[in-house]
């Protein structure tokens, strides 16, 4: 699995080839009961424009409800939904979140290349400063996680 956080564009990308057909992967990504098993409790409803919620754990003033709306629905190739939550009364973890999760499924020999991009994280910096920064570097998450655990 490749997993990278790119702070310059504030996006998380996960990519992996899984030994299952795109149709199977699509089913697991878009069936409420199955989503509950790998993601979180949810009220997933299929189709473009459908709205659903995901129940995350509450943080501070946020009750943990993630509001989602499907913005791309192209079985079994592409799925995108908004991922909105948080509270303006929280700072850092638990702060307002207005993001997008996009899943792309590409058939490859022996399975599916599955790619997830979670982007739209608000940057604490303004755009000018962001542009001024050196671009194109990534931090691999397990390494950050290793350190974050001790923080």
């Amino acid at each position, binding site marked *: 699995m490749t997993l990278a956080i790119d702070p310059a564009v504030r996006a998380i990308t996960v990519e992996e080839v899984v030994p299952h057909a795109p149709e199977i992967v699509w089913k697991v990504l878009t069936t409420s009961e199955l989503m509950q098993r*790998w993601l979180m409790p949810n009220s997933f409803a299929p189709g473009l424009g459908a709205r659903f919620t995901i129940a995350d754990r509450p943080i501070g003033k946020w009750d943990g409800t993630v509001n989602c709306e499907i913005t791309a629905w192209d079985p079994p190739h592409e799925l995108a939904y908004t991922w909105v939550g948080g509270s303006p009364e929280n700072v850092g973890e638990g702060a307002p979140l207005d993001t997008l999760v996009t899943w792309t499924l590409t058939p490859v020999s022996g399975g599916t290349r599955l790619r997830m991009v979670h982007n739209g994280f608000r940057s604490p910096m303004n755009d000018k*400063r962001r542009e001024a920064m050196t671009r194109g570097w990534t931090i691999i998450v397990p390494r950050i996680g290793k350190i974050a655990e001790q923080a």
Partner: protein
Amino acid sequence: MPDLAVLMRTLADPTRRALYERVVDAGEAAVMELTTGSGVSQPAVSQHLKALRTAGLVAERREGRTTRYRATPQGLAPLVDWIGVYGVFWADRFANLKSVLKEIDPK
């Protein structure tokens, strides 16, 4: 706590970032150990360590005549906001997703 811009500017240098990763992996190390096999001169390593220390990413500890460096977890705190939280979250969920796939589509 240094702000995110300082942190990112510090880590934007690939040589410095590689050095920081070496410190993280080593747990604690002296300049000598960090220089060996790094392809960077010892004075350069010292300079980068100084920058990492200023950014709050590493701390130093004197041990006799050598100074040993270690990563300071709280230095990364500005990065561990939502994006950091979700980085760990998705790594975890991807693993779950693979188990569910394996179960419903065994080979």
